[in-house]
């Protein structure tokens, strides 16, 4: 477990780099077992929870890449879809608890946008579970870790996303 524990702090700089180089595409080998999940994290809650989880040396699945967002209200359908199109197998949005958004209703907008993207995916025959919204508070790192592991489990059970 100590080896895995080192992973979690390392996930953070990787996430920071990922946000800069996301557009370039970090393609996963087709058919390979390795999956990639992009987690768009709210600066006020989920990223703080991730930080606390890392400080507590909790291990995160190696598939997840964190992207820092000022608020989940910034996440647009294009962010989620281009993450999927450019190499991710799944995308998750992690924001504040409902009614506790730092900017009042950013997470409600994110919830609806995620629902919209799920319907878009469904209409073209892609599993809607590949995009999902989670809510948590900053003081609840176990919930963040549980959300990431849940996402990792769901994406791991799906076949790699095929791209044209």
């Amino acid at each position, binding site marked *: 477990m100590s080896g895995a524990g080192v992973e979690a702090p390392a996930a953070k700089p990787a996430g920071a780099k990922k946000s800069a180089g996301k557009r370039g595409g970090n393609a996963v080998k087709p058919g390979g077992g390795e999956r990639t999940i992009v987690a768009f994290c709210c600066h006020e809650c989920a990223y703080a929870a991730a930080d606390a989880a890392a400080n507590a040396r909790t291990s995160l699945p190696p598939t997840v890449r964190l992207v820092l967002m000022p608020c989940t209200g910034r996440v647009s*359908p*294009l962010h989620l*879809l*281009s993450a*999927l*199109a*450019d190499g991710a197998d799944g995308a998750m949005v992690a924001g504040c608890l409902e009614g506790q958004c730092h900017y009042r*209703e950013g997470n*409600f*907008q994110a*919830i*609806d*946008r995620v*629902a*919209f993207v799920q*319907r*878009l*995916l*469904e*209409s*073209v*025959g*892609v599993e809607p579970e590949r995009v999902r919204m989670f809510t948590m508070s900053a003081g609840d790192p176990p919930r963040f870790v549980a959300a990431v592991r849940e996402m990792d489990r769901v994406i791991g059970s799906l076949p790699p*996303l*095929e*791209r*044209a």
Partner: protein
Amino acid sequence: MPLTHRGREIIGRLPHDVAIGRGIGCEIVRHEELCVGCGTCAKNCPSGASRRGDTFDVNQLLSAPADSRRGALGAALQRIARHAPAGVIAVPERVTVFRTIFYDEEECLGCGACARNCPVEAIEARPAVVPAAPAAEATS
């Protein structure tokens, strides 16, 4: 919309080729490929000719040109699509863009409020076309 008595009187005094159809107005040309589906035109429409729908036709994304906002989303969707879009989807309340705008030409007054207020200049209000003008201009 029928003109008032005073309106008809004014039209009667204009050269005959200015008064077209059921009133004076601009020819409204909608560039659907530039539209982001925000519904600002519908909000500003005095006659209800433009209406913001609660649904979205996914095929609109795929037919949009690549350099437009809808086109960028459509290109991403196209890469991961397993089959052609199944059609119309419902749009959640807080998703303010990506909606199909319904435009009823019959209801339109040609006032151009939609063109003035469109944030992405997807609507053009051209000078009214006289019925005698060349067919190519009139039907475009």
